[in-house]
C-alpha cells in the first residue's frame, strides 16, 4: 500500500514537472475575427487566441467592455487588422490595459496591414468627406489576395514575439498560404460571373473585393463613409442605379436590411447580404469560410438578377 502511494506520488510529481516544462501557449488578443482565425491557423497549439469583436458587429462600433481590458492587460501579443479599422474601441481599451508591450509600435503589436498597398488614401482629412481613414480604406480583408499578405505579417509578428516558435509559424504560414492559393484559384472560377457586374454597397468596404473580381462600384447607400443616407442622396443613387443598370445592392450584415431592400427594389437590383468580417454570415467561422460565403452569396445574387431579366 505504501509502495503504491509512493508510486502515485512520484507519478503525480513527474506529471506536474512535465506540465510545467511544457511551454505555455502565447496569449494573443485579436482585435477582429479575421486576424484571430489567421493567428490560430498559423500558430496552432502554440497560441491561445481571444477575439474582441464578433463577426456580426460593425467594426466601427464595437462596445468598449472592461472584460477586454483584463485580456489585453495579460496578453503576450495583440494582432490588429490595422489601418485604423479598430479606432473606435481599441485606443480606449489599450489606454486602460496598462500593457506597454502591446501598444502601437511595440514589438508585440502585430499589424496585419503591414504589406497591404492601401486604396482610397484620402488626399485631405476633411470630415466634410465623412468618416475617413487616414491610412486608406481598411476593409482589405474581404479580398483573399490581401488575406495572404495579412497572414505573412501575422506570422512575422508572432516570430518576433516568440522566436522559439519560428519553425512552427513558418510551417503554419506555408500551409495556410498553400490553402489560400488553392482556394483563390477555386474562387476565381466561382466568381467569374461577377466580372463586369455593377454594384452598390451600403458602406464603402468592397473596393478590394471589387478590384479582385472585376466588379464595378457605382455608389453607396451611405451619403459619405459613416454618414447615414439622406433622402436626396437616395433619390440620386436610385436614378444612378437605373441609368447604370446596377445588378446588386450589397448589404453588409452589420447594416440595416430594410433600407437596402427599398433601394434595390426601386433601383431594379437584387439585395445580397455579405459580411465584412469572418463569422458574420452563418457557417463561416474561418476566414476561408467567410470569403467563400461572401462570394457564393454574390454569385447567387448575380444569377438571380440575370434570371429575372431573362
Amino acid at each position, binding site marked *: 500500500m505504501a509502495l503504491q502511494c509512493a508510486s502515485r506520488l512520484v507519478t503525480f510529481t513527474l506529471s506536474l514537472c512535465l506540465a510545467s516544462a511544457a511551454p505555455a501557449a502565447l496569449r494573443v488578443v485579436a482585435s477582429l475575427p479575421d486576424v484571430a482565425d489567421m493567428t490560430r491557423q498559423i500558430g496552432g497549439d502554440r497560441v491561445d487566441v481571444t477575439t474582441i469583436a464578433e463577426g456580426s458587429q460593425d467594426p466601427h462600433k464595437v462596445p468598449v467592455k*472592461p472584460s477586454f481590458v*483584463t*485580456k489585453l492587460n*495579460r496578453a503576450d501579443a495583440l494582432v490588429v487588422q490595422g489601418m485604423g479599422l479598430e479606432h473606435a474601441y481599441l*485606443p480606449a481599451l489599450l489606454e486602460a490595459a496598462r500593457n506597454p508591450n502591446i501598444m502601437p509600435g511595440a514589438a508585440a503589436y502585430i499589424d496585419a496591414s503591414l504589406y497591404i498597398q492601401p486604396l482610397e488614401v484620402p488626399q485631405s482629412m476633411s470630415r466634410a468627406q465623412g468618416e475617413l481613414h487616414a491610412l486608406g480604406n481598411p476593409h482589405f480583408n474581404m479580398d483573399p489576395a490581401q488575406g495572404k499578405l495579412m497572414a505573412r505579417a501575422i506570422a512575422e509578428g508572432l516570430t518576433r514575439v516568440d522566436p522559439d516558435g519560428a519553425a512552427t509559424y513558418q510551417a503554419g504560414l506555408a500551409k495556410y498560404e498553400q490553402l489560400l492559393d488553392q482556394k483563390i484559384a477555386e474562387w476565381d472560377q466561382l466568381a467569374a460571373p461577377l466580372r463586369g457586374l455593377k454594384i452598390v454597397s451600403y458602406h464603402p468596404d468592397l473596393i478590394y473585393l471589387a478590384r479582385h473580381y472585376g466588379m464595378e462600384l457605382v455608389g453607396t447607400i451611405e451619403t459619405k463613409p459613416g*454618414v447615414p443616407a439622406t433622402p436626396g442622396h437616395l433619390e440620386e443613387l436610385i436614378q444612378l442605379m437605373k441609368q447604370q443598370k446596377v445588378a446588386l445592392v450589397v448589404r453588409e450584415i452589420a447594416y440595416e436590411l430594410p433600407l437596402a431592400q427599398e433601394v434595390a427594389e426601386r433601383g431594379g437590383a437584387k439585395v445580397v447580404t455579405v459580411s465584412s468580417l469572418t463569422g458574420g454570415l452563418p457557417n463561416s467561422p474561418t476566414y476561408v469560410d467567410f470569403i467563400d460565403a461572401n462570394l457564393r452569396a454574390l454569385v447567387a445574387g448575380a444569377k438571380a438578377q440575370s434570371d429575372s431579366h431573362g
Partner: protein
Amino acid sequence: MGPARSVSRAAVALFALVALSSSDLGHAETQSQEISALKAELAATKGELAKTQSALDALEAKVEALASNGAGAPAAAPPPGASDTARIAPVNADNPGISFVVDGQFGTNTQGEQGAGFLLGTGELFISAPIDPFLRGYASINGTTDQGFDVEEAALVTTALPWNLTVKGGRFFADFGRFPHWHDEALPFVNRPASIDKLIGGESQSEGVEVSWLAPMDQYLDVTVGVYNSMGAARFDDPGAFGTGKGQRSFSELSYLVHPTTYFDLTDTLNLELGGSYLAVPTGAKRGLYGVDATLRHQPGTSEFYQGTDVGVEWLWNSERFDGVAVASDPVTGEAIVGSGRFHRDGGYAYFESFFGRRFSVGGRFDYAENPFGDKDLQRTYSAFVTWKPSEFQRLRLQWDDVGIDGPNDQRFTLQWTAFIGSHSHGFAMR
C-alpha cells in the same frame, strides 16, 4: 600617365608583331606594299588610340574629382521643407491632438423667471498627447455662458509604471462614482443630474493625485485611491483662504478617496458594472461621502432596429459639517439661526437609454436631490430625452424636465446642439 596608356602601347606593339610575323617573305614587292599599308594603318590606329586615351584620361580625372569632394556634381533639389541653408522641421511637428466641443442650448421654463433663452452649455478645448515614453498629458479648457473660461482639467498620467499602476496628478475630475467625473458633453442627458450638482458640487473637479490599480486577473477589478484639496467644481476652495496661496491645510483636512469598480459579463449581450466610492475629510469627521453605482447594458450588436439599452443608477449619501450656515429657525421669530451643524443628506438618479437604428436613442431619468445643508429643499425631477446623431460628430437632443421643489412643478424644455471639431475622446473613463 595612367596605367591605361601603358596597356594601350603594349597592345599596339603586339598587334604590329603579329602582323609582321604573318606576312609572306617570298613576295618582296608585295611584301613592301603590304608593310607600307600596315604602317599607315598602324599610324592611324595610334592616332585613334591617342584620342581615346585622352578621353579616358579626362573621364578618369572627373571620376576622381567626384569621389574626392563632389566638386562639379549637379546641385540636388532640396527636400520638401528645407530652405537653402538648413533642414528645418515643420513648426507643427510636435503638436498634440486638439479638439473643440461646441454645445449650444435653447431652453424654456414655466416657473420662476419664466421664458426662453440661449446658452453656451460647453465650449471645451481639449488637448492631449504623449509627453515621453512614460507620461501623457491632457488639458480641458472650458467656457460656458455662466462661468466664463476656466482650466477645467490639466493633468499628467503615467503610462509605463509596473504592477498595473497608473498615477494621475494635477487638476482633474476625481474618480468618484460614475457620472460625477464625466464631462458635460459626454453625458447622455442635456444636464447633469441635480443630485450630483448638489451633493458633489457639479463635476468632481479636484486638485490632487490619484493612483489606480488594475488587478492582474481575468475578473475586472480596478481600485482608485486619491487625495485632493477638495472635490467638486462648485466647492473649489479659494486657495487664499488657507494662508499661503497654494491651498495648504493640515493632512487631515485633505479629501481622501477610495473607489473600486468591477464588471461582469452576465451573457454574451448583457453586462453589469458595479462601483462603490467613499470620500472622507478626516478632521473632526468633517465629511463622509458614500456612493454606489450600477450600470446594466444590453448590447446585442445586431443591425436590427433595436440596438441596445443602458440602465444606470447612482446613489449618494453625504454626511458633512458646515460652518456659518442656517442650522435651525428661531421658534419665535422664525429667523434662521446661523452656526455649525452636521447634515446627513441623500440623493441619486436612475435612468435608461435605448438605442434605435444607427442614430436614434430615447431615454428617461428620475432624480432625487437634497440640499447638502440647511433646508432639504427636496427636488424631484422627471425627465425624458430623445437624441439624434446626423453623423458621429454631431448631435441634437431634446429634453423635457418636470422639476418639483415647492409649489407648481417647473416644466423645462431644452434643445441641445452639440458638435465635435477634431478628434475628441475622453477615453475609457467615459465609455
